[in-house]
C-alpha cells in the first residue's frame, strides 16, 4: 500500500534501471554526468532561480512541436516577439501514454515530411542530447509540460537533458486526463519523479515542480484545486523537492480569482515545510473560448487584469486562437503581449477590492475541511488518505473522466459569477460550508426565476464561449458537448 514516505535511494536506482529498458535513449542517462551538465548552465536558464528571484509576475506560454529546429524557432519567437519570461516544452500525446514507439514513428514522419504529425515534442525520443541542444539553443529557462500519468522515463530523460522544471502530479495528471489509471500506482510513479527531482536538488540542481492547478479546467471550485495542489506539494516535499509552484486556473470572477490565489499562497506556505520555496502560477481561463479572436482577447484581457491585481509569481497565457486549438506562433506571442500590456498598465496601481478577505477566508476554511479529511482518512498519511478520499468521494473533481474519482461534484456560478457547488456528492465539506454554497445558488435561482439544476451547470459551461460569464437562461443549453 502506498505511503507518503521517501523513496529509498536503492529503490530509485532499481526503478531507474528498469525504466532504461523502455526506450533506447534512456541508456544515455547518467546522474553524475547530468549534475555536471546542469552546473554549466547560466543563471538565466535555471528555472527555479529565475522564477523565485522575480519581482513581478512572469509570463509563460504553452508550446510544443515534434522536431528540434522548429521547437527552437517556436520558443525563440515566443521569447523575442512574445516577450515570454519562461518557456515551455509541451510533450506529445503518445509520450503521455508511454507509447514511445508511436512517438518515434510520428517524429520520423515529421522529419521526413516536414509536417507536424505529433501534437508536441517527444522529449524521450529526442533523448538527452536532443534536450540539451534545445536548452542550449533557446535563450530562456524551459519547463516540461505534458499530462503524463506515468512520467518517470520522461523525467529521467528530461532532467538529464537539462530541464529544471517539470509540471504535473499524481492526482492532477491522472484524474482529469485518464479513465482507468490506478491512483495508487500513479502516486508511486510520481514519488519516483519527485524523488529524482529531490536528489538533483540535494546535489545543488534545484528542480522546480509544478502540480497542475486547473485540473479539468471546467468550473473547478477553488477549494478543490487548492486542496489537491497542497496534497501534491506535500507528496513532492516528502521526496525532497524544494521548489514548488502551486497552480490555479482562472474562473473569471475577479474577487474569487484574487482570493483563491491568495489562499493558495497562504495555505501552500502554511502546509509545506519551511525549507520549500512556494511560488504560485495563475492559468488564464482553461475552459471553452469564444470562437472569435476579438472576444478571446477580451477573455485574455480579464486574465491579465486579474493577474495584475493578484500578482502571482507566474501566469500561463492563452492565445486569441484558443478556440481553434493549437495557435500559430504569432497568435501565441500576441496572447503574451496582450497579457503583458494589461499587467504593465495595472500592476503599479493600488487596486484594492472589497470582499477579497471574506472570499479568501471561505476558500481557506473549505480547503482545510477537505485537507483535514484527507489527513484523517489516511491516519496521518497523505498518500493513503488521498486514495481513500477519492474512493469515498470526500475529495472529488468535477467533470473528471477518471474512474478513480466519483465525479459526483457539480459546480455552478452564483449570482455574482463565483463558482459554487451545486451537487456535493460525498465531498468533505461541513454542513455550514455547504449551506453557503446552497444559499448563493438559491439567490441566483431566484434572480433567474428557475430552480437550481443541471441546467445552470450546462449554461455555465458554455457561458464564456458564448460571450458572458454567467449562463443566464435564454433557452439554449447543450447536451452532447
Amino acid at each position, binding site marked *: 500500500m502506498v505511503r507518503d514516505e521517501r523513496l529509498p535511494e536503492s529503490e530509485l536506482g532499481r526503478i531507474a534501471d528498469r525504466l532504461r529498458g523502455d526506450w533506447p535513449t534512456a541508456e544515455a542517462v547518467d546522474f553524475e554526468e547530468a549534475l555536471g551538465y546542469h552546473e554549466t548552465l547560466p543563471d538565466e536558464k535555471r528555472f527555479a532561480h529565475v522564477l523565485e528571484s522575480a519581482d513581478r509576475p512572469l509570463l509563460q506560454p504553452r508550446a510544443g512541436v515534434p522536431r528540434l529546429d522548429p521547437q527552437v524557432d517556436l520558443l525563440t519567437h515566443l521569447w523575442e516577439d512574445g516577450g515570454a519570461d519562461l518557456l515551455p516544452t509541451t510533450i506529445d500525446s503518445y509520450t503521455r501514454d508511454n507509447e514511445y514507439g508511436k512517438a518515434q514513428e510520428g517524429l520520423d514522419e515529421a522529419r521526413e515530411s516536414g509536417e507536424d504529425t505529433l501534437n508536441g515534442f517527444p522529449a524521450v525520443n529526442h533523448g538527452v542530447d536532443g534536450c540539451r541542444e534545445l536548452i542550449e539553443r533557446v535563450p530562456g529557462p524551459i519547463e516540461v509540460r505534458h499530462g503524463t500519468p506515468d512520467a518517470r522515463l520522461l523525467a529521467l530523460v528530461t532532467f538529464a537533458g537539462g530541464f529544471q522544471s517539470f509540471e504535473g502530479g499524481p492526482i492532477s495528471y491522472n484524474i482529469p*486526463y*485518464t*479513465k*482507468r489509471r490506478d491512483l495508487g500506482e500513479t502516486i508511486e510513479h510520481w514519488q519516483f519523479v519527485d524523488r529524482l527531482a529531490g536528489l538533483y536538488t540535494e546535489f545543488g540542481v534545484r528542480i522546480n515542480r509544478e502540480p497542475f492547478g486547473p485540473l*479539468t479546467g*471546467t468550473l473547478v471550485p477553488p477549494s478543490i484545486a487548492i486542496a489537491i495542489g497542497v496534497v501534491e506539494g506535500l507528496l513532492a516535499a516528502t521526496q525532497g523537492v524544494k521548489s514548488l509552484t502551486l497552480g490555479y486556473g482562472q474562473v473569471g470572477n475577479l474577487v474569487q480569482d484574487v482570493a483563491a490565489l491568495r489562499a493558495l499562497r497562504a495555505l501552500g506556505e502554511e502546509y509545506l515545510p519551511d525549507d520549500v520555496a512556494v511560488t504560485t502560477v495563475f492559468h488564464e481561463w482553461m475552459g471553452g473560448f469564444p470562437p472569435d479572436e476579438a472576444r478571446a482577447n477580451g477573455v485574455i484581457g480579464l486574465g491579465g487584469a486579474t493577474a495584475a491585481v493578484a500578482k502571482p509569481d507566474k501566469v500561463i497565457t492563452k492565445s486569441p486562437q484558443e478556440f481553434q486549438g493549437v495557435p500559430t506562433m504569432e497568435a501565441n506571442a500576441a496572447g503574451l503581449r496582450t497579457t503583458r500590456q494589461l499587467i504593465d498598465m495595472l500592476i503599479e496601481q493600488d487596486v484594492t477590492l472589497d470582499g477579497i478577505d471574506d472570499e479568501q477566508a471561505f476558500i481557506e476554511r473549505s480547503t482545510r475541511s477537505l485537507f483535514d479529511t484527507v489527513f484523517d482518512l489516511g491516519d496521518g498519511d497523505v498518500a493513503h488518505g488521498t486514495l481513500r478520499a477519492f474512493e469515498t468521494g470526500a475529495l472529488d473533481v*468535477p*467533470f*473528471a*473522466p477518471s*474512474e478513480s474519482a466519483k*465525479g459526483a461534484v*457539480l459546480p455552478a456560478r452564483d449570482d455574482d459569477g463565483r463558482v459554487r457547488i*451545486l*451537487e456535493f456528492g460525498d465531498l468533505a465539506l461541513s454542513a455550514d460550508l455547504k449551506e453557503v454554497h*446552497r444559499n448563493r445558488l438559491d439567490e441566483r435561482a431566484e434572480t433567474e426565476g428557475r*430552480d*437550481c*439544476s*443541471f*441546467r445552470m*451547470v*450546462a449554461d455555465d*459551461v458554455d457561458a464564456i464561449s458564448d460571450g458572458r460569464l454567467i449562463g443566464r437562461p435564454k433557452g*439554449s*443549453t*447543450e*447536451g*452532447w*458537448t
Partner: protein
Amino acid sequence: MMPRTVILGVIGSDAHVVGITILDQALSAAGFDVVNLGVQTSQAEFVDAATAHDADAVLVSSLYGHAEQDCRGFHEQLAAADLDLPTYIGGNLAVGQDEWTETRRRFERMGFTRVFDSETEPQEAIDALRVDLDISTTETDRESVPAYT
C-alpha cells in the same frame, strides 16, 4: 411502473466528459435510471451493460470526430446479444464540411434510432425517449427528483 434504464457512454478513446455528465444529470432528474459508463467506452462495454441492466435504451456520445469508425459493427453486436432497443447517438459526428442531413442519414443507416448534433439540448433526448419508450409525461414527471439530491 418501474423507471426506465438507459445506458450512457462516450464511445471510443474520446475523453470529453462534460456533456455526458450533464446528460446524466438531466436524465436522472427526468426520472430515468442512468447507467453512466463514462468516457472511453468500448462497444463491448455498451453491450455488456445493456444486457446486465436489462436496459431500455442506449445513448452514445462522441465529440472527437471519430464516431463513424468507433460505431462500425455496433448494431451487429447488439443484435448478436439479442438486444433490440432504441439507440441514440449525439455529438460532433460530421468530419469537416459534411452536410448535417447527410451525416444524420449515414448514422441512421448504421442502425441508430435517432441522431443528434452537438447543439441538442438534453430535453430533446428526454422527449424522444418518452416517445420511443411510450412513457406518458405525467409518469416521468412524478418520478422527477429535485436538484439537491
